[in-house]
């Protein structure tokens, strides 16, 4: 660790991993509820479990992004963090607020929670992924602004690199587009239209900047390739991401009441959205092949390469599968959407956060890389989780194809629930793939506690 203040990243990473475990447990519960409908009802109805599952994902990724920024920015700017105390204070505020929100979801009926937290003053709740109570949303804004203030100040007083500028731009974009979560018009079409300004412009816009910056940082560190080369490609990739992704928002505007030209604009530009992901994969492999040194942290290199491949498959290929309007007409809102969502989030954002954790955590613990045995276990975790996710995606895709066929394409369409009964085999297989993923996650947790004889000493 080159700068003392980088240490504040550690609690962020630990919290991220802890919440990740919670997310997966709720995922397994929901997977079972798909099969045994009344499992845990009425203690944890499906809608509550889903809210916990998706909100935990968002919050732990935010923890991961913030931890990554606190780790990367001092090293990039070549100066200590502006205020480590602020970073630590915001950590506890965010953790407590996040935990209270989740506890609120689980223990208080949602409509009571809404009343208690000022939803009648400004109604923002009850929309997918933006279910958080008003005070939590305000809390997120406050924490993120404090965080941005802290790292922006750090960048301003130190060296300004392309990596840190792109990271900052992505994080500022994250904060700015989140403000649309406070806008909830009565008109459902407009509600949905601007809801995507948060959701799509996050995951297929500014988050891609964050992801690319994280990946570029780790690649610079583990390959030793010249920073100039990596930063040039970083710019090319994020250009492609925004050029295709911004108008690509149109692929969400096909069937929600927006004008029909979005079917063309959305189809054409989102058909090009795989390009940046493909470029990212080629870029990651290229840089690793051109490496100028063998970094002792093999696991981090594996995560970095895996991110490229899985983001391309999940966001690129699985996104393209159903993004063209004539296809999407049949697949919209089916299990195919769920399949794409799972692999895209895992491949792009889960894996990139695990990449930076894999790279930074050993250094934060005072060594360049973990002992051999710990790394082997971490790589087992990589493969179990990744293969598990591939199977989850394949089974959901199969379920989705059958669902679309029975419920939408057929001349004698079946009702929604009758169709669901036909999908049980795939839901069972998905659940078992989920168990495989969970085993991988447990291996990952254990890998932090494996001690081996030959830890690589921290490099000077």
């Amino acid at each position, binding site marked *: 660790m080159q700068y003392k203040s980088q240490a504040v990243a550690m609690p962020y990473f630990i919290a991220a991993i802890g919440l990740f475990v919670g997310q997966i447990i709720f995922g397994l519960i929901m997977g079972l509820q798909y099969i045994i409908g009344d499992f845990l009802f009425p203690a944890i109805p499906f809608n509550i479990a889903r809210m916990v599952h998706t909100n935990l994902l968002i919050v732990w990724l935010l923890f991961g992004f913030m931890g990554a920024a606190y780790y990367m920015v001092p090293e990039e700017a070549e100066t200590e963090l502006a205020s480590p105390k602020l970073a630590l204070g915001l950590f506890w505020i965010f953790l407590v607020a996040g935990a209270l929100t989740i506890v609120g979801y689980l223990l208080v009926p949602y409509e009571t929670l809404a009343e208690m937290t000022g939803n009648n003053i400004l109604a923002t709740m009850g929309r997918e992924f933006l279910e958080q109570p008003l005070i939590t949303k305000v809390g997120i804004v406050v924490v993120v602004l404090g965080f941005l203030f802290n790292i922006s100040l750090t960048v301003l007083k130190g060296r300004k690199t392309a990596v840190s500028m792109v990271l900052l731009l992505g994080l500022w974009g994250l904060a700015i587009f989140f403000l649309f979560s406070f806008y909830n018009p009565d008109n459902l079409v407009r509600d949905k239209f601007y809801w995507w300004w948060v959701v799509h412009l996050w995951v297929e816009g500014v988050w891609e900047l964050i992801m690319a910056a994280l990946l570029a940082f780790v690649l610079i560190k583990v390959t030793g390739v010249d920073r100039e080369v990596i930063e*040039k490609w970083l*710019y*090319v990739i994020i*250009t*492609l991401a925004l*050029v*295709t992704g911004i108008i690509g928002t149109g692929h969400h505007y096909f069937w929600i009441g927006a*004008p*029909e*030209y979005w079917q*063309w*604009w959305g*189809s*054409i*530009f989102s*058909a*090009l959205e795989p*390009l940046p992901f493909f470029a990212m994969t080629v870029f990651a492999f290229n840089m690793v092949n051109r490496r100028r040194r063998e970094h002792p942290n093999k696991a981090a290199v594996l995560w970095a390469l895996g991110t490229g491949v899985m983001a391309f498959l999940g966001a690129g290929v699985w996104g393209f599968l159903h993004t063209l309007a004539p296809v999407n007409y049949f697949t919209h809102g089916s299990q195919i959407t769920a399949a794409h969502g799972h692999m895209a989030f895992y491949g792009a954002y889960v894996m990139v956060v695990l990449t930076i954790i894999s790279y930074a955590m050993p250094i934060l613990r005072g060594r360049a890389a973990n002992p051999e045995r710990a790394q082997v276990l971490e790589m087992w975790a990589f493969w179990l989780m990744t293969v598990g996710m591939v199977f989850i995606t394949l089974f959901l895709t199969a379920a989705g194809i059958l669902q679309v066929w029975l419920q939408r394409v057929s001349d004698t369409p079946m009702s929604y629930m009758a169709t669901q009964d036909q999908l049980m085999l795939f839901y069972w297989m998905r659940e078992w793939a989920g168990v495989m993923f969970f085993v991988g996650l447990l291996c990952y947790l254990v890998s932090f506690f494996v001690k081996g004889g030959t830890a690589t000493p921290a490099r000077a």
Partner: protein
Amino acid sequence: MNTTHSPAAPQPAHAPRLAGDLAIWIFILAELLAFGVFFAAYAFTRASNVALFDAEQLALSRNAGALNTVLLLTAGYFVVRAVQAAEHAADRIAGHWLAAAIACGTGFLAVKMFEYAHAFQADISLSSSPFHMFYLSLTFFHFMHVILGLVILIALWKNVRAGRYRLGDMNGLETGAAYWHMVDLVWLVLFPLVYVIH
């Protein structure tokens, strides 16, 4: 920047050289891909609505389109002359060529706005028919490219007058010129496709 390249050093005499920055070529390819898919979509949709497309196409002003073609081609020629002049260190002349190109490009925008004003009076919008959707989408997408191209040309003009480009250090100028030529090229497909062929 490329100030580190000395004029004589980089290329063996006959090695094919890519004019302009590699980054712009990646971007140009992506842009051509987007336009290409859009053109294909137009042709595909037209195939199933030939009569409607032909009728509404006739309402467009081919004269305005032809005038704009001339303006863009002329601007493209001026940009070529500007690059040549700058290579011979004739910065003042290069500046004049660029200013002429900017004038032609601005003329293109004026003609196009005249056309749009006409269209809006006739209640033509993105939602009024499939042909209008494509006509407005394609031309407006291109229109914005012309605006961006002009912003770039103006930046080049300022740099040329400041004497920033020299033989062997033409990267910025060539890059901007390459972008402008792409805008030209797209129009050369767009004009016959949308205004003429039926």
